[in-house]
């Protein structure tokens, strides 16, 4: 209903390349939304249209119900943005950059800023030119999380961060979500999205190919079933909902469609179960399903068969 971000048939072309091809994206207020796609799928272009840096060629984009191109400066008061590759002014220190970005939004909460500097373990006295990639990223993250805004636009924000800092980042996003902020997290790190996001949109070649909650997505995917049986089982291979069955004596392994789980478990129970694991599909598997043809083209077997 009250969508913070909404795009309708958004098209953006660069010369002959169509970066966004009728993109429909919707992020509700208070939601932490994962924006998944490989490099070049159009994630950054979509975010830059939402930021009013790029003008769309067709379709509509709305931020808080307003036009991000026309009202860019005004809308930016309510959001903070972290690009995937932060470039800093070589002569400004990290602290100066954070303060400047804070003042542009109307003021710096010094307590919050210092606490974040501590949590991200960032030295604010170094000049922009001497920060490493991860530290440049931290400067933008501290500035964004210190800001009192309604929306966080994060475009692959953790690239270059070590796992410890990745954990700090996850905490900060969770706190932002608890404070009622809307977060759009573009990423290709599945574990990050799985841990943080309620809803996910998968983008491919400028089109959203799947959007929904993780639970919904899982529902339409196959679970991985492994079992050690007491007696051999028959007929599994003939079942429509069973794929990639391997039988190794009494050990079986297969992918099962959600609708067929009932049947399969009943058949296994008949044979007698010594051990059983049933894994829901990971986000990675769901994601790879949409990119199966591209993987096949580059010689990698389809994602779902890759599960073992």
């Amino acid at each position, binding site marked *: 209903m009250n969508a913070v971000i909404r795009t309708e048939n958004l098209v953006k072309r660069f010369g002959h390349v169509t970066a966004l091809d009728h993109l429909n994206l919707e992020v509700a207020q208070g939601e932490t939304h994962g924006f998944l796609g490989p490099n070049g799928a159009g994630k950054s272009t979509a975010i*830059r249209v939402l*930021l009013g*840096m*790029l*003008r769309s060629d067709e379709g509509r984009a709305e931020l808080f119900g307003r036009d991000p191109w026309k009202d*860019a*400066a*005004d809308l*930016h*008061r309510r*959001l*903070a*943005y972290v*690009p995937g*590759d*932060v*470039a*800093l*002014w*070589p*002569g*400004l*220190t990290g*602290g*100066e*950059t*954070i*303060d*400047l*970005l804070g*003042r*542009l*939004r*109307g003021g710096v909460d010094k307590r919050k800023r210092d606490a974040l500097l501590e949590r991200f373990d960032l030295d*604010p*006295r*170094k*000049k922009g*030119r*001497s920060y490493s990639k991860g530290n440049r990223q931290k400067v*933008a993250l501290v*500035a964004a999380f210190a800001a009192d805004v309604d929306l966080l*636009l994060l475009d692959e924000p953790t690239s270059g961060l070590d796992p410890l800092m990745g954990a700090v980042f996850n905490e900060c996003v969770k706190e932002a979500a608890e404070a009622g902020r809307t977060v759009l997290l573009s990423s290709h790190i599945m574990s990050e999205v799985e841990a943080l996001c309620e809803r996910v949109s998968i983008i491919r070649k400028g089109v959203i190919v799947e959007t929904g909650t993780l639970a919904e997505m899982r529902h339409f995917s196959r679970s991985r079933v492994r079992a050690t049986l007491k007696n051999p089982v028959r007929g599994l291979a003939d079942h429509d909902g069973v794929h990639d069955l391997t039988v190794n004596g009494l050990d079986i392994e297969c992918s099962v469609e959600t609708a067929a789980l009932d049947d399969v478990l009943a058949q296994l129970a008949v044979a007698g179960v010594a051990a059983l694991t049933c894994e829901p599909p990971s986000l990675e598997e769901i994601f790879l399903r949409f990119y199966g043809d591209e993987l096949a083209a580059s010689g990698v077997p389809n994602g779902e068969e890759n599960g073992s």
Partner: protein
Amino acid sequence: MTTATAALGDNLGTLAGTGKLLRFHARRTRLYLLGWFAGLVGGTWLIAAAFPNLYPTAEDRAGYALTVDTPAMRSMTGPGTYIDAYASSTGAMFAHNMLLWTGALTAVMFILLLTRLTRADEETSRLEVIRSEPVGRRADLAAALLLAAVAALVLGALIGLTVLGVDGADAEGAFLYGAAHTAIALVFAGLTAVAAQLGAYSSSANGLGFAALGASVLLAAVGNAQDNWVTWLSPIGWSQLTYVMTPEQRWWPLALGVALGLLAVWLAFTLVAHRDFGQGMMAGRAGRAEAPASLRGAGSLTFRLTRGLMWAAVITMLLLGAAYGSILGSADEMLANLSEEQRQVLNRGGSSIEENFAATIATIDALFAAIFGLLVVGRARKEETDGRGELLAAAPVTRGRWPGSYLPAALTTATAAVVVGGVSLALAGAASLDDWGSFGKLFGASVLQLPAVWVLTAFAFAAYAWLPRAGWLRWLVWLYAFVVAYYGQLLEMPGWLQGISPFDHIADYPAADVEWLPIAVLVIAAAAISALGYAGARRRDLHFS
């Protein structure tokens, strides 16, 4: 295996991969090199072609020799030995007038080339990838220096071929003239290689290189003005001291340049082993943890980021104004020696030669000041291509503030440059004329150029706003204005062609009375072009890489 060969092998190990890197460097700098070759050789060719027509007879040249033979003019050209040969050889006159300037530009080319291939690559971590390959610790420096040496030889040969046709230049003279540029190139490539080891960043390495160049030009100027030994302290002076294309022509002063170049190369190779990757010998300092109160918005950030250019403008214009101002005093001597035709060329309708000179100098000064306005506009583009502007573009900042604030910053810098240049010109001019009443006239002549400078700067901004990729456009327009101001009369360009340059519409005060209407029109034009620029800045996509 003796220890000697082992040590040799170890030494060669630090140079492993030099050949491959050399080819790689050559490939990625080919456009840079071609551009500079074209500029230096093309400029030399143009002026070499024009010179014989400007002063066709020995009498013309002898007359000009008298006007040039003053300390002030010698400081801006070269040693007096050339002047003695003016009558007998156009080549001597050409070399005398050109060598200091094309020599200095050659130095700029090689300073930028060396930092580009060494420290700048370290900062962007491009070199890190290369170092992880089977490539020795000194290989990148060796490859950069080898490429510079090859480029220096090619440049010398091209310039030699270009001046072969100049009257008074035999083959030896022509190639000595080329070699004079090669020697300067080698010296500054070597010195910058040392600077690259010392500076904390590539910008400080560039700064050290340019400081060396500034000192060289200044020492040559001081030495030539007094025609004494001080010229021998300057690498550019050594090239001038070959007395190329005069009867006293000689090669051996160039040996000093080659020797200093080799010494610098040896020093650079010694230092490179004593510093860490990505670090200079002189460490950078820790900065502020918090922003000063003055840094509170996109506008103040722009002004802070362009502060360095502002200082460069002020210092350059102080020196330039003082240099031109000090010539004014000797204008009287010149007048006595000028032919009637020459007086005609200089005549801007003023009652005295000083006033005619002042009007010309004020325009040239203002054109130099405008360069700094254009450089500030260039910074706006750089913020975009380097991706730094992205953080601002995502903040509550209108397009009018970012990148819009680069226009006021550019206008402020250019205006300060004109005013400082005017004060400096007026002070030095009044002193050399020994007439303090002329201070107001000289200062007024400089300040009157402001509307034209504003038009040029506003155009540069509008060009950036509408056609961000066409950075050459602003320089093309500047170059056009420069050609009109310098050579417009000489080349007998039609009036409407000269009229394209905004400077053409400013009256030749103090040689002529001030005309206020064209000035008002220029101010309005500057405002209109600015508005057009802002419209462009609001309209286009911002592309950050």
